[in-house]
């Protein structure tokens, strides 16, 4: 009974339980030989999903219909332009980071301008925006593969006390996001808007300002993630963001954030991101082909949703 209540109160425990099961199953197959390497890889790749997932979570918390489809295009553009600007010089690392944050700010403002001024549903507004952003990325990339500055590349692929630096960055960002969400007035505002925009407006919450900031935050996190991913993988590629569209939505939902808005949680995103990476590597370890791997990934996602969805009826 107490366990039941704990699971209802802390929905993110589900995703962590699933993660641990998948980790153990994978390690069992390899006989424990690769447990350290697997954990390292999982932390690194999960970190990228966590960063974009947090942004997407803030947007989804705003309520039904709110979603940011421009995440992949933003990542690509930010990675491309930042590497181009830094031009392999170590001294430009900070400038590059600032530039990518700036790109995120501009895209976020653009997204919300379309949503607000033209009253386009967010899903279509961010989609149209992503087309334009993608075009700019194609135009500026021109098939060149510029390497990241050496210090930055070393930072991205190394770690501290066995924990990858990327994971540490994601952890710091998660803590900031958690404070924003749970302890600041802004976090209360977005939850209130997600539960009832009308009631929030009546209560005097600056609805438009809050939504604008949220879309900007999501775009900035996506562009920072693009900057880090490009540094990690040794260069920007035009399709580098594509898998993060579905990933950013999937980790938010599997992590236990209500899709209807108004209720979100950050630990769940970590659990879900680790889980998503480990499922794929587990299926790889067991030697499944690409087709079976995709089918099983899909079925596992649906199974997790079915299990986790049950807790809402417990309430």
């Amino acid at each position, binding site marked *: 009974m107490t366990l039941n209540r704990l699971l209802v109160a802390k929905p993110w425990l589900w995703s962590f339980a699933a993660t641990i099961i998948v980790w153990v199953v994978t390690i069992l197959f390899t006989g424990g030989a690769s447990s350290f390497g697997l954990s390292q890889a999982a932390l690194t790749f999960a970190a990228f999903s966590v960063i974009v997932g947090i942004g997407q979570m803030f947007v989804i918390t705003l309520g039904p219909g709110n979603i940011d489809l421009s995440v992949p295009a933003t990542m690509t553009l930010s990675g491309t332009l930042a590497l181009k600007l830094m031009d392999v010089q170590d001294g430009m690392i900070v400038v590059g980071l600032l530039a990518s944050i700036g790109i995120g700010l501009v895209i976020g403002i653009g997204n919300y301008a379309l949503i607000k001024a033209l009253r386009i549903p967010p*899903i279509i507004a961010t989609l*149209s925006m992503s087309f*334009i952003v993608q075009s700019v990325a194609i135009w500026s990339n021109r098939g060149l593969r510029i390497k990241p500055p050496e210090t930055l590349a070393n930072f991205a692929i190394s770690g501290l006390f066995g924990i990858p630096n990327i994971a540490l960055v994601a952890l710091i960002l998660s803590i900031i996001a958690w404070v924003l969400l749970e302890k600041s007035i802004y976090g209360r505002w977005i939850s209130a808007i997600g539960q009832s925009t009308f009631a929030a407006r009546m209560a005097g919450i600056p609805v438009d300002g809050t939504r604008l900031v949220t879309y900007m935050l999501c775009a900035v996190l996506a562009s920072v993630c693009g900057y880090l991913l490009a540094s990690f993988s040794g260069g920007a590629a035009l399709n580098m963001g594509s898998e993060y569209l579905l990933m950013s*939505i999937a980790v938010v939902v599997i992590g236990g954030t209500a899709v209807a808005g108004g209720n979100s949680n950050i630990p769940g995103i970590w659990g879900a991101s680790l889980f998503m990476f480990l499922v794929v590597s587990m299926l790889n370890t067991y030697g499944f082909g690409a087709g079976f791997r*995709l089918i*099983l990934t899909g*079925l596992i996602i649906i199974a997790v949703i*079915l299990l986790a969805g049950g807790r809402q009826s417990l309430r």
Partner: protein
Amino acid sequence: MKISSSTVRLIIPAASLVLLLAAVFYMQPRAMSYTGLNLLFNLAVPIALATIAQMLIMSVNDLDLSMGTFVSFCACVSATFLQSSPALGILIFLGAIAAYALIGVVINIRDLPSIVVTLGMSFVWGGLAVLILPSPGGTAPTWARWLMTAKPPLVPMAIVASILIAAVTHYIVMRSSFGVLIRGVGGNDRSVERAGWSVLGLRAATYALAGFFAILAGIALVGLTTSADANIALRYTLLSIAGVILGGGQFVGGKVSPIGAVIGALTLTLAGSFLSFMRISPDWQIGAQGAILIVVLALRLALNRLEKREKSQ
């Protein structure tokens, strides 16, 4: 003269299609012919069918993020099983329709968000498509090829097919009692339930029907391209959603328009041709498509405001 509000909602998408068509004709007068129109709208048929499928799902307040992978899967089945052993192909399609109905049942019973379930399903369909056709290939069934390349007198096949699709789905969704019920589920599922109908059954039937139209989209696509691959229709997910919205449909409330959805799909297809006539560099093609989407929706907003102002006077 009194015009119903549903007609007004249709005028705007129709006007933007005519405007875009006029621009294309102005830039390339040779497009104003039988062959020209056929080339312009050829690829619109599968997109229109997929848009109708998406519209059905949206009419019960859900969203199908697996549309693109599902149409790809159907295209792969059409180019392989349906061509070599039609009975097996039809059996697979019946199974796929049953799977769609099952998704509807699961979403309804557990009250799950449709975007997440269909997101999971998109992996499943994608995986199945890769299993069927690991590399691009297959052959279109001869009848599908014949149907898509048929040359009826006076009006090109693409236009005939679009009108046919619009008419049939308009009848199903707007005129039949089944259509009223599914839009009722989108509008207020509780009152439909209280009136004695089974929302579970209605949702399952809507999903099955959507699956059926998506299958037709897959067959039509293979009829045009003659072969298939596992990623052939991935962009249909977003295209179909954009098509419904362009056609005046809404995400919630059961407010959809089949004729509008077909017009929306035609507009999106035409936007692609328009850009190639403009000789825009390939770098900017996608971006310009986004810009056209924004312009058309802005136009709609302006016209909506105009309509409101007239009403208040």
